[in-house]
């Protein structure tokens, strides 16, 4: 096992704090009507950021669900820029540049897991090095796509890491109503793949687990299902009121195990972190997201873009619709 270096942990913490800070900004932007519905990352920062730091962005892919983008800074500034484009409702939001090995958000739960297996399989067929990490939630792990994909990944020994962020909730449905299984990672046994549970609030532990799974995958030892146990500290989305269903005492307990506070404590002890550094990170994170938001809002869009990129060439029917759209857009 490779423990992350102190410098790596510091880089992870910077990304975590920036993500938490920017999540607060997103909430306000949504309330101001400047962006659509978003899913806060609060409580998932260690799992997402440490995973990204355990990967090699030049060869490893990340297929997110929808909660992760703010903590994927390691994959480049384009991730945040496109996330903001997505949040303002611009179609370019899901079109990351070729060089960024991050797929767009996935709203149809668990459907990205078969894609990850196919992508990892395709990379192997072409002798490309690299692994694919796919994020999904505890609720998503009840979907058929998770089970079909885990099974196929096992058969093909695909270099894929199935990263289940078990935050105990799927909107208002608690884990015990999601499954009778004692552990989500145990399901790996049924598919003949490696399964591990990790404390998702412990950045170093997540880094280790992903690093280990990645090495196995690259060595041809097949997929790993990682269950990262966290707690959703915020609302499901900006459209949700968790006070209707989250027991306050559970939330209180989870707050005492905040992943950011935990890593801060460790790095303060090492003399690598203090309030001053933190506030510098926060200031920088806010100006960064404000910049990205302004740019997203100013990003041009023609009505005709509605018809673009559906088929490689318009069908005769679509060609007529495109003409109609252009004249109707002037009505």
């Amino acid at each position, binding site marked *: 096992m490779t423990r992350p270096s102190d410098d790596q942990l510091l880089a992870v913490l910077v990304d975590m704090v920036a993500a938490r800070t920017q999540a607060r900004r997103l909430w306000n932007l949504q309330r101001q009507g400047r962006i659509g519905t978003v899913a806060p990352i609060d409580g998932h920062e260690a799992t997402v950021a440490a995973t990204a730091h355990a990967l090699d962005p030049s060869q490893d892919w990340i297929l997110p669900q929808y909660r992760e983008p703010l903590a994927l800074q390691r994959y480049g500034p384009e991730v945040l820029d496109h996330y903001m484009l997505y949040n303002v409702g611009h179609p370019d939001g899901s079109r990351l540049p070729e060089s960024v090995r991050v797929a767009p958000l996935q709203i149809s739960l668990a459907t990205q897991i078969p894609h990850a297996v*196919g992508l990892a399989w395709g990379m192997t067929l072409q002798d490309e090095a690299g692994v694919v990490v796919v994020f999904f939630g505890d609720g998503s792990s009840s979907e058929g796509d998770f089970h079909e994909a885990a099974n196929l990944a096992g058969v093909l020994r695909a270099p894929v890491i199935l990263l289940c962020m078990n935050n105990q909730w799927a909107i208002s449905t608690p884990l015990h109503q999601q499954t009778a299984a004692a552990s989500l990672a145990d399901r790996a046994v049924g598919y003949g793949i490696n399964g591990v549970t990790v404390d998702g609030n412990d950045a170093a532990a997540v880094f280790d687990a992903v690093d280990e799974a990645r090495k196995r995958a690259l060595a041809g030892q097949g997929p790993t299902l990682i269950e990262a146990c966290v707690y959703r500290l915020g609302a499901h989305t900006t459209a949700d009121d968790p006070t209707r269903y989250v027991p306050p005492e559970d939330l209180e307990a989870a707050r005492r195990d905040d992943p950011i506070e935990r890593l801060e404590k460790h790095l303060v002890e090492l003399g690598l972190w203090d309030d001053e550094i933190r506030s510098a990170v926060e200031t920088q994170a806010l100006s960064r997201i404000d910049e990205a938001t302004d740019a997203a809002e100013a990003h041009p869009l023609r009505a005709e873009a509605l018809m*673009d990129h559906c088929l*490689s060439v318009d069908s005769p029917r679509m060609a007529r619709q495109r003409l109609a759209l252009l004249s109707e857009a002037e009505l």
Partner: protein
Amino acid sequence: MSEIGSSVTGPSELTMLQAINEALHHEMARDERIVVLGEDVGRNGGVFRATEGLVEKFGEERVVDTPLAEGVIAGAAVGLAMAGLIPVAELQFLGFSYQAMHQIAGQVARLRYRTRSRFEPAITIRSPFGGGVRTPELHSDSLEGQLANIAGLKLVTPATAADAKGLLSSSIRDPDPVVFLEPLRGYRGIRGEVPSGEHLVPLGEARLAREGDDVVVIAWSYQVELACRVADALIDENLSVAVLDLRSLVPLDLAAIASVVDRCGRAVVVEEAVQTGGFAGEVVTTIVEECFWSLESPVVRVSGYDVPYPVGQLEDTYVPSEARIAAAVRRVLEVA
């Protein structure tokens, strides 16, 4: 509209199934990026033998027997396409595409659109469909109307052996996702001359299967075969019946439909699917939009009924027959 596709070498007499198999062999030899995946497509060569000989020739890496799970067959095809490969997936029967529909409609069809062409979904999904061969339940459903209602998919429906080969090659080479529907009754029931070697038929060009001036029967897939038999039989009654084979429903050859209906002034549209919401309705709408002032009588549809595809003893009642098509032709001609 084209009469025949381009071809290089001479023809030979093949069944539709053999023609499909030939296209797969030809394409896999041509492009290393093509991967065939599905249930029983390797060792067994497919339950109908459409993929016969592929695994022997191209190996187990490129011809893959998958677990029995349609959703992940379609879903993994998306990932393979993201990796730059060209997946050709087989769904063993179209009735089981429901188990994959969330991936086909929600993911395969939208990949290009939502990523603004970052990812090119050069995916072909082949599947047998249609009735008349006494299969068990859910093996015969004609779902092309449902598929046509999914934006971002092409939908190809060959009716002859030569077209099965030429359209399949074109589908595999097409940068868009194609659902390629193969009529079960045609696998061994349709045979004809098929150009050997390279043979391409462009997507979106209908074919005039029979010349005629009095009335046109518009059809696709196996119903073209039935319509041609009707047209041939009615020659004895001095009726000149044209048959237009749409070949692909998306893209739809609007110009070909307009041209033949304008000339004949009378039209019958044949489909095997459930009538309500079926693709024949789309064709009739096209006729109304394009040719209303040329029409000399109301357009008539010959379809299945608004019931689930039935079990064996009721199949022949359900499926459009030559007699029903001929009656519809006479009906549109009765109007003076």
